[in-house]
């Protein structure tokens, strides 16, 4: 699958990129902020979007809402260390397909990619 990641921490982006490739998927791009994400996602056409909730300019929920206006088909996996029931419900309502809790292992990432 073609995977794009939106995450502010470059160490996490690098680690996830390595894991994605090791799992046999294609890593097609990355962004570290809302603005960069929306700019790049208007051109890129990922099959899976890995989306962090905490970003430097706006949050991942806002990225998700904006992204869903232009793309209804890409599967979205939220990656977050927040354990908020209300947030999870809102993310699913806004079109997230899965919520992956940080910190996660390569097996958990693999399982999330297979589930969606």
């Amino acid at each position, binding site marked *: 699958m073609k995977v794009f990641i939106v995450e502010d921490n470059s*160490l996490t982006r690098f680690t996830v990129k390595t894991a994605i490739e090791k799992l046999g998927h294609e890593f097609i791009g990355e962004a570290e902020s809302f603005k960069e994400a929306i700019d790049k996602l208007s051109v890129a056409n990922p099959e899976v979007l890995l989306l962090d909730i905490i970003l*430097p300019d706006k949050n991942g929920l806002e990225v998700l809402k904006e992204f869903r206006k232009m793309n209804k088909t890409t599967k979205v996996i939220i990656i977050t260390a927040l*354990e908020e*029931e*209300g947030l999870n419900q809102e993310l699913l309502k806004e079109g997230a397909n899965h919520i992956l809790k940080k910190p996660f292992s390569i097996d958990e990432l693999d399982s999330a990619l297979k589930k969606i």
Partner: protein
Amino acid sequence: MSEKKANFKKIIDLSIPDILSKINSISSYKWEDLSNEEIDLGNYNSVCSYFEVKDSDYPMNFALFFNKGDVIELTKSFIGYNFFVSGKISKSEELLIQELSNIILNSIVSQISNLAKKVIIPSGPKIIESEKEFIFDVISRQLTDNSNREIFHYIFKIKCREKNIYCEVISFISERAMNKLKVLL
């Protein structure tokens, strides 16, 4: 201990199992919370992760302080080695402190969110390197517009192999937010 401080401690107590479970799942060392004793760490050279919560009902700010001298041990506990010898923390150490403090802070904020039944999303961490008291002073001055902030303090003492590592959490929570939380606790 005042009632408000006791309430803040309750929130921390609710967060601790989640924090330890998450950190232990990624660290090669066993982490335990040994925070029952009173500790005064005084001033020290610190690495601080600073977070803001810009929520209309629950405006809060958090500063998580680690002793700069503990960063080598912290890095070893997560990635297995640390070869850096510079006096300044490296970019990878900074990113690691960001993720570690994210895990701790997000667990605390999630407890508040679940109590308040409200989505609360904190900012990402800003890393500041300096003496703890200097950083505390700068943050306090920056918050002067936000009157009625109460300061709560908690020290996580974590046994990391044979070494005790401390994470001081200093939070600035509005009186209104604390009063709301008091009803919910």
